[in-house]
């Protein structure tokens, strides 16, 4: 391996690592706020990529009926949850959020899809279709388990992953898709040729990180999310409902997942089950960060991306194995310095 190839691999690694970083951040967010280890995060990625590909092809994506269905289920779940406190206005608000909003998005997709309105509109439409699913899933699958242990939540999370993957197969079929790059441009930088697509990916990742930082440090809603992660009871005593925090963190995760899907779709062929592996690599990064630290998770994600790109050059058949094995030394290290005995409540 000479220096040029190494540089090339590093560039590849950083670009992929940027996606893993986004996913790792949303996983840390969801885990700290809700204690859910969000295995289905990968499905949001796949849904994002495949929804965009379908719009690109001028067809109505299968995620649209799913959005309507999930919205309906979430409406029922919300009504059941709020049956003691709900008044007319509350009911109207729920109906707007769970029924009218998805209907509006669906109508827009139905009208716009056949017209092939251009990449920018299609991306916005993709984000609008996938993002609300996060909150709906939280209401339907996870809120009723709010008091369950991390382990039960993890099993439920795997259940949701199974169902969403299966639905992905129904909606998008077994064939993979690829979308055109966000930019065809490329720029020479020394021995390398930097593509506009990679610049977009790194730029958007940085933009999302800055936006998240602003959201958490400047808005009361963002602070309420952190507060819930830091002290759930304390947050409830301030009137911050755990279901609000949960719904919000799931929506952020779905948004980040869909955007990641949009970003990788031009780079690799995405299948209905591709998201799982991508999500798991985000997990490797999040675990290295202890499922708690944002900067550590983001840094680890870049490292995972680099390991992966070097591994795929050196031993392409075993690249997944090498990436997943990277968590062993980390787990070992954590194991050796963890307190020997503690009760988990």
């Amino acid at each position: 391996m000479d220096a040029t190839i190494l540089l090339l691999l590093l560039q590849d690694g950083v670009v992929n690592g940027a996606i893993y970083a986004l996913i790792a951040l949303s996983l840390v967010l969801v885990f700290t706020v809700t204690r859910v280890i969000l295995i289905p995060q990968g499905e949001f990625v796949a849904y994002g990529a495949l929804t965009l590909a379908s719009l690109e092809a001028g067809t109505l994506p299968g995620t649209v009926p799913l959005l309507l269905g999930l919205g309906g289920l979430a409406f029922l779940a919300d009504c059941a949850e709020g049956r003691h406190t709900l008044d007319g206005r509350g009911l109207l608000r729920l109906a707007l959020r769970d029924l009218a909003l998805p209907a509006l998005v669906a109508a827009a997709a139905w009208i716009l899809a056949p017209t092939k309105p251009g990449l920018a509109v299609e991306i916005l439409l993709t984000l609008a279709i996938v993002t609300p699913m996060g909150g709906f899933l939280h209401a339907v699958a996870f809120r009723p388990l709010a008091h369950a242990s991390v382990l039960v939540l993890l099993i439920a999370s795997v259940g949701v992953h199974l169902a969403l993957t299966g639905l992905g197969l129904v909606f998008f079929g077994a064939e993979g898709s690829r979308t055109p790059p966000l930019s065809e441009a490329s720029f020479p930088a020394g021995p390398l040729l930097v593509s506009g697509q990679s610049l977009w990916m790194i730029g958007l990742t940085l933009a999302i990180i800055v936006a998240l930082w602003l959201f958490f440090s400047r808005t009361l809603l963002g602070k309420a999310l952190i507060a819930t992660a830091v002290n759930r009871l304390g947050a409830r005593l301030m009137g911050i409902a755990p279901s609000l925090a949960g719904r919000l963190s799931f929506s952020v995760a779905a948004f980040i997942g869909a955007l990641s899907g949009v970003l990788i779709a031009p780079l690799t062929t995405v299948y209905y089950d591709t998201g799982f592996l991508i999500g798991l690599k985000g997990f490797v990064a999040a675990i290295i960060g202890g499922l708690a630290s944002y900067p550590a998770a983001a840094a680890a994600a870049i490292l995972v991306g680099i390991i992966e790109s070097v591994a795929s050059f050196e031993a392409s058949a075993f690249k997944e194995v090498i990436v997943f094995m990277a968590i062993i030394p980390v787990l070992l290290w954590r194991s050796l310095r963890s307190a020997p005995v503690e009760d988990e409540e």
Partner: protein
Amino acid sequence: MTVPMLEAHAVSVAYGKVEAVRGVSLSVAPGRLVTVLGANGAGKTTLLNALMGVLPAKGTLRFEGRDLTRLPVEARVALGLSLIPERRELFSTMTVEDNLKLGAFRFRTTGGGGDLGEIYRLFPRLAERRRQQAGTLSGGERQMLAMARALMGRPRLLMLDEPSLGLAPLIVAEVMRTVARLRDEGVAILLVEQNARAALRIADHGYVLDGGRVVLEGDSRTLQADARVAETYLGSLGAETPDRAAATG
């Protein structure tokens, strides 16, 4: 007595098979300071948690005429109830100021929460430490922050669980003065205390809990003179109650 603001009737709380609170009834009138006394393990904290909705309870609970029984914690906060729990439950990795801002979360969309400037005038120490993480505060400052954070939510009924816990006597006196001042400003207060003398000095009315039941009730002067109050703390053992416990007034 005026119409009660908070009215609890036959409230019971069980942890599995253990009943920690057994059929407690109490009421708090608007603008009054009511204290609940009792030794460790008498069920005081459990009672407050039940009133706030943190723990499920049997019995009926009404706040300004509205049935609270099925409302979750957040909905009770929205009605103007506020609890400062025994462990304070601060957001330890966030700044003092962020803690305070979150205290007004229930007014997020409507406006009308507490005023930061006013709070800082009331608690000057917190103004000095506004950029500091809540977890780095001393015990007294943490209690101040917990109270200030609760006040940012402009509670109509403030419940305090052992505000004197782990505090030195001088700070206890300061905390009690603050509580009394809040009452004078019109906030109804339910104060749970182990420090019976300090609590009875500022309270209007008191209940004494033992083994999860109300064993004594009365206005605070009567209770101050009642030897049985000291007994619930120090046991009977045949020895007579120390003079100082009975003669405070």
